[in-house]
């Protein structure tokens, strides 16, 4: 038994915001209340800290199987734990692609053996994510997937999207889409705008994303399926999602910390600023923050995309897209959104907990008998992020050396403390 004492419990599901103790018994929460005592329990003093339901990351890349030089399930889940995440959804663009139950089982079993947090894989929508035949979605569901996506690229055609949606609707799975129009994307490496023109880097117009979001919303209207827009980055896309929600469609979306923090004006000839979707205009960034605040955006997801230095330490236009994100996500949310007065703390917690849970169709709460998955964080601790000290195998982040206010202090998965640091930042 573990008794978490003196913390400020923030539970969006019950709208609780109070000084309460939480008693964990095995893998479940046993009791919540003021001044609990349990003589046999180990005590976790959470004075000055916030106790929240376990964070869920809807979008990450762990590179195993296939690219273990960049990340493994072991290192990736350790980084996730340090970021306060208790469950993560790994995208299927591994080698081989997670498009069948044996790959799914391999990931789930590996995570059970060496992983720090819960692993909820996303399966490919089509075989090899090639956009042709449907993947073995039902078999993968039995093996543990919680959604499908051809992430890294969009589900290739409207026709295939219709089939995937119909099929997943019957299976009760959300369809997650990485939205871009290949003909507009066309070899671009950053968002098209004044910065791309100045740097002489090939630009990708924002319509590359929103055109595809528009298509997907139309398909959701046709099929009634659950559609989730991955790493949404533009105002145009947000408008499609807002209107879909108003029409009662089951359409959700996520935004990454780098997209609510940085803009295309921050891009330099440094491949740690190269990601897909690319950093957007300040108008888009401000719209995303507005969407996070008003409920149009459902979740914050990291799109943690580790790349080995050998692949990133190259010319900008030759580098792969992607940045790491687990260990900076909460710190960015607190520093950029909460402390700047753009989001109440409760709303930020929602975006990491019940927001992503709803996308997956599950609950997330601090209540008796709920799974003992908790994220304990400081909203105020000031610290400097050092990529070299990251638990991830890769260090491709634009936030190296950035000073943050707020950090995860402990991550508890199924009653087990998988990450803990003291107030001086020592893990």
């Amino acid at each position, binding site marked *: 038994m573990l008794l978490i004492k003196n913390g400020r419990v923030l539970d969006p599901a019950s709208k609780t915001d109070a000084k309460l103790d939480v008693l964990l018994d095995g893998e479940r929460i046993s009791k919540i209340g003021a001044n609990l005592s349990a003589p046999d329990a180990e005590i976790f003093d959470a004075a000055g800290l916030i106790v929240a339901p376990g964070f869920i990351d809807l979008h990450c890349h762990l590179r195993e199987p296939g690219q273990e030089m960049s990340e493994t399930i072991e290192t990736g889940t350790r980084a996730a734990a340090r970021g306060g995440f208790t469950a993560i959804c790994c995208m299927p663009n591994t080698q081989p692609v997670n498009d069948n139950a044996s790959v799914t089982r391999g990931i789930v079993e590996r995570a059970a053996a060496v992983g720090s947090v819960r692993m909820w894989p996303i399966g490919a929508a089509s075989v090899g994510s090639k956009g042709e035949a449907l993947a073995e979605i039902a078999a993968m569901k039995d093996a543990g997937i919680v959604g499908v996506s051809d992430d890294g690229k969009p589900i290739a055609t409207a026709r295939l999207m219709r089939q995937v949606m119909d099929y997943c609707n019957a299976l009760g799975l959300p369809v997650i889409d990485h939205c871009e129009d290949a003909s507009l994307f066309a070899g671009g490496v950053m968002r098209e705008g004044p910065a791309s023109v100045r740097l002489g880097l*090939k630009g990708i117009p924002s319509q590359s994303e929103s055109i595809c979001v528009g298509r997907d919303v139309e398909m959701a209207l046709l099929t009634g399926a659950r559609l989730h827009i991955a790493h949404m980055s533009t105002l145009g896309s947000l408008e499609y999602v807002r209107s879909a929600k108003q029409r009662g469609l089951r359409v959700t979306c996520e935004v990454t910390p780098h997209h609510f923090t940085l803009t295309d004006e921050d891009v330099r*000839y440094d491949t740690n600023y190269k990601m897909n979707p690319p950093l957007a205009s300040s108008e888009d960034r401000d719209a995303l923050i507005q969407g996070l605040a008003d409920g149009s955006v459902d979740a914050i997801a990291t799109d943690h995309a580790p790349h080995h230095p050998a692949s990133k330490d190259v010319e900008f236009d030759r580098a792969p897209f992607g940045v790491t994100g687990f260990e900076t996500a909460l710190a960015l949310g607190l520093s950029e959104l909460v402390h700047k007065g753009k989001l109440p703390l409760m709303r930020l917690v929602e975006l990491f907990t019940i927001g992503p849970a709803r996308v997956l169709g599950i609950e997330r709460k601090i209540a008796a008998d709920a799974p003992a998955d908790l994220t304990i964080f400081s909203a105020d601790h000031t610290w400097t992020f050092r990529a070299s000290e990251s638990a991830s195998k890769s260090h491709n982040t634009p936030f190296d050396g950035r000073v943050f206010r707020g950090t995860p202090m402990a991550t508890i998965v199924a009653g087990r403390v998988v990450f803990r640091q003291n107030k001086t930042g020592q893990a």
Partner: protein
Amino acid sequence: MVQRLQHLLGIEPLTREQITFLLDQAKPFQEFQRHPLKKLATLRGKTVAIAFFEASTRTRISFTTASSRLGADTMSLQAESSSLKKGESLLDTVRTLEAMRPDGIVMRHSSSGAPEFVAQRLEIPVMNAGDGTHEHPTQGLLDALTIRDRKGTLEGLNVTILGDILHSRVARSNIHLLTKFGSRITLCGPPMWVPRELETLAPNVRRVVRTEEALQGADVIIVLRVQTERIHEPALAAEEYVLGYQLTPERLRLAKPDAIVLHPGPMIRGLEIDQVVADGPQSCVLEQVTNGLAVRMALLYHLIGGAAVDAPHPAKE
């Protein structure tokens, strides 16, 4: 006192004073090109690495000649013959070059920002000889020298740049340089290659749709090459380009009578420029080539020779 340069990566970060200094330094080297004996000992014992990761003839020859006329030795790398074809990274290639102890590296690369990437990782001065669609700073300098010689100033001129601006590193360097001196830039070309964002590059940059209007009152016309190798979009038919944007004698008459015509080369006669204009009295094309040598000698002297920047020099402005 002028801030000493470590590298020359682009015109954009330079101050007006730094540019004026380099142009003034180029003056004696202009006269030097007419000398019967074209060899100085200034950089004797120095080595310049000339690393071209993208095909080039004139810029490579110009830098090689500039180095040798200053007395420096050169070592040359061309993409075709290099280990890049065998999969070596840019970083490994330039580190290998650096280990042979050159005193500076002149670099051309098809990726925008590649010289900056290298400059951050090597100890020696890096000279950008053209990077992707970003900048071609020595072209900007030699164009400025040519314009200043002909017009007596770089201030208050009406400069029209014609062609594929979006994919032109020459245009970017020219725009940054000339606007720093208060000249006004008019951009004109096929609209998909002249996006509105170009107007945010610098103050006093405007776009004009019709070539005839763009040429009205121009003091300087810079005609760009149609960069077929850099265009990913469907290309415009040559006939359409000629019809809308070729600099013809008739169109040239719309500019000021003493307007000059520049072209960074290589020129495609009959496409972006008419034969008669290319060879006409207003054309500065060959002067540009000679000035290229002078500017590059001045640059090499400044970056590798350790010339004192605060030494007295005749003010030209």
